[in-house]
């Protein structure tokens, strides 16, 4: 075995017991990641070599001769050298294990899984944020996602009383009125019924009202996963709630509010604005990214309330009640209320106002080297489509307009990019979104001037990532 161990395995780049202490920084030019080959491997690189070795061994039956060389060179595969030594890159000159062996058969994974090399990008909890994991949050790994769609398995989670995997044949949706005259025929629908109705599919973001809530007063968490990861975006398929209300003969003139209720243990309830029901935007959804909803996201049925904070998107939806006054439910009378400096709480705050964040490069990351980078991030607005995004690399003194990738949809994530040549000097990266109403995302100073620092909810301030000379990117705040 020892002959397969890459040289350098015994000398990790940083001291694992002193987080962040770069014991070999003297060697690596201002501490930046040097794309140097062997004898210079981070623990991650070493791990990758390990995986490569496993690959090699798995295929050794078919590629016995070729493989020994390939595995020994695995260390170099981890980070390609900027300049090539000798005849060239051994990954090209020597047969690779995957290029010289038989691969796995079809349906080896009946439900496909991400590559084993992608294990870093998973939902994670923020230690100490909540006391128990069944009333908690897991954050989506925005630092590694592309485009605008969140893979269903990485969709952030927020549960108040754990999650359930409901038997869809036993799930029912009831529509009734707070008073008998609000709904002519209160009805019960099975999933069969709901899936027979004319479907729509639409892409929308969902953001927890408490996203970025840990940062109201000061910087608290290291990466975009924890600062902004209570954010996801999916294509949802379902039936506009309006269709169901009309089917039951609801009095849409008398109706002022709608109550949505979940079928899990918490039977979570929320008051839904009738305006978004009448516009046809609110939907009763069963589909997410082409398949059924994931149990963690409300299988088999959830409410989709575009532009409104996630807590209103009642999961495991069992009942809709048409009413004429708000309900002051627990999660709109004890939580999801925004504390203002005068001691009053804003109640029924719902819309997620225009916001954006750079996801790459972002906090906790290190730039590989000087030179070309694409600054890339996400922008969204609960009031409609994103109109433009500006990016600053000097902490907001000067701005450049970013490119918006299509599609640019209403109440949906929008991906923006800006080309950037990093000269190796310290930089302060910010993004600032403007939506179709003309609303411009506020700076921290502006937001705090009106809402103080204790609100918890609806923090849509401009995020700053500080790029140090070392290439390290860190979370900072600028007012």
């Amino acid at each position, binding site marked *: 075995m020892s002959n397969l161990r890459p040289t350098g395995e015994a000398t990790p780049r940083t001291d694992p017991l002193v*987080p*962040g202490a770069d014991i070999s920084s003297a060697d690596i030019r201002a501490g930046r*990641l040097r794309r140097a080959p062997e004898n210079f491997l*981070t*623990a*991650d690189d070493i791990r*990758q070599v390990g995986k490569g070795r496993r690959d090699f061994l*798995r295929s*050794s*039956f078919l590629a016995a001769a070729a493989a020994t060389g390939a595995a020994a060179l695995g260390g170099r595969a981890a980070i390609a050298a900027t300049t090539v030594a000798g005849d060239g890159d051994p990954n090209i000159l020597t047969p690779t294990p995957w290029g010289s062996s038989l691969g796995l058969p079809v349906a080896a994974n009946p439900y496909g899984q991400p590559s084993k090399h*992608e294990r*870093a*990008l998973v939902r*994670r909890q923020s*230690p100490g944020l909540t*006391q128990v994991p069944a*009333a908690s949050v897991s954050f989506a790994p925005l630092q590694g996602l592309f485009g605008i769609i969140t893979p269903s398995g990485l969709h952030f989670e927020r549960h108040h*009383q754990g999650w359930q995997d409901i038997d869809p044949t036993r799930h029912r949706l009831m529509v009734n009125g707070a008073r008998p005259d609000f709904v002519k025929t*209160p009805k*019960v629908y099975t999933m069969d*019924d709901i899936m*027979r*109705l*004319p479907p729509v599919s639409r892409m929308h973001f969902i953001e927890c009202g408490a996203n970025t809530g840990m940062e109201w007063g000061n*910087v*608290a968490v*290291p990466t975009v996963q924890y600062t902004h990861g209570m954010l996801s975006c999916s294509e949802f398929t379902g039936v506009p709630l309006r269709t169901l209300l009309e089917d039951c003969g609801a009095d849409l003139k008398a109706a002022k509010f709608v109550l949505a209720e979940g079928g899990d*243990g*918490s039977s979570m*309830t929320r008051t839904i604005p*009738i305006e978004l029901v009448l516009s046809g935007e609110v939907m009763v959804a069963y589909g997410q990214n082409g398949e059924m909803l994931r149990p963690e996201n409300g299988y088999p049925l959830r409410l989709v309330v575009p532009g409104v904070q996630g807590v209103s998107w009642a999961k495991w939806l069992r009942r809709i009640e048409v009413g004429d*006054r708000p309900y*002051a*439910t627990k999660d709109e*009378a*004890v939580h999801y209320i925004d504390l203002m*400096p005068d001691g*009053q*709480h*804003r109640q029924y*705050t719902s*819309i997620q*106002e225009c916001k954006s964040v750079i996801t*790459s490069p972002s*906090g906790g*990351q290190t730039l*590989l080297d000087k030179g070309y980078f694409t600054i890339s991030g996400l922008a969204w607005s609960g009031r409609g489509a994103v109109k433009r995004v500006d990016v600053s690399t000097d902490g907001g003194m*000067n701005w450049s307009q970013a490119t*918006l990738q299509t599609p*640019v949809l209403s109440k949906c994530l929008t991906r923006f990019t800006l080309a950037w040549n990093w000269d190796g000097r310290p930089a*302060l990266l910010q993004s600032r979104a403007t939506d179709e109403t003309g609303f*411009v995302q506020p700076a921290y100073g*502006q*937001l705090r001037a009106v*809402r103080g620092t204790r609100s918890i909810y609806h923090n849509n301030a401009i995020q700053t990532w*500080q790029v140090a000379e070392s290439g390290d990117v*860190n979370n*900072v*705040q*600028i007012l």
Partner: protein
Amino acid sequence: MSRSCKAALLASAVGALLAWTAPALADGFANVGRPATPAEIKAWDIDVGPDFAGLPKGSGTVSRGMEIWEEKCASCHGTFGESNSVFNPLVGGTTAEDIKTGHVAALKRTDFPARTTFMKVATVSTLYDYIRRAMPWNAPKSLSDDDVYAVLAYLLNLAEIVPDDYTLTDATIRDVQKRMPNRDGMTTAHALWPGPDFPGMAAKPDTANAACMTNCKPKAELASQLPEHARGAHGNIAEQNRLIGPVRGQRTGPDTAAAEAPSPALALAEQSGCLSCHAVDTRVVGPSYSEIAARYRGKNSNETADALVSKVKAGGDGAWGAVPMPPQDDLSIDDAKTLVAWILSGAPQK
């Protein structure tokens, strides 16, 4: 076409989508859904509004509430509703003066971080509704309506809103509302609701940034930075980022992969080339190790192991099919024994 043009087109496509009405036929959606029965509505329509609509008849005393609390609630919320171990404290932070004013004074204080349930909640209906539908947390909807009255009476007593000898009923709860410490602590004067349905709603958002492009301010000053102790508080960020691409994660903690080192037998199986034909859970050229373990489970283990060691060393076919396993000449007997023992124990990865 310019970007903004494209965006506008897309936006209008969304507009068109929303105007889309369901293609119902003249007689609606025939045979889809059915009328709900009165009993079904009664079973599920359990919400209680701030005007007490939906409140069931019933009553409960503080002393009965204390019994229920100690049996079913105190384990998580503490004897006095003060516990911080499972959830935030329910009780505390309110005063007799707050009961008079209807505003919890401590909410104005920046030196008073606690925010208990009773400091915030304005409507007592919220507590009745919520306890009835969701508590106890691990057995929701198990309390009778009277028990909900009783345990709420006890909580109100802990919060010094009602006296020790109080009986909470569907009638007296209206008096309690007038004594809720933060009953006037809510405002709807904001623009974060999409309609005009609340008193004092603001027409415009409360911030008004401008999209300045050049020389927007003289300098960029940092107001806050990540405290040093928080750098490693979320594990090793190097392991939360991809191994390829323009960036890497910073090393902020020990490498958990090293701690989860694979089992030495797995490494031996790799090194000995077994894994080119065997996987733990799926059939490759040879049977999966879990199949092998399952077939020999419960058989006389020494004999089985010896037979399998010889088979591995000598190779052979017929036990699983016509494909032969080649002889493993280079494999020592000890290694073969280690491997067979590992396979028979289910081939654990770690």
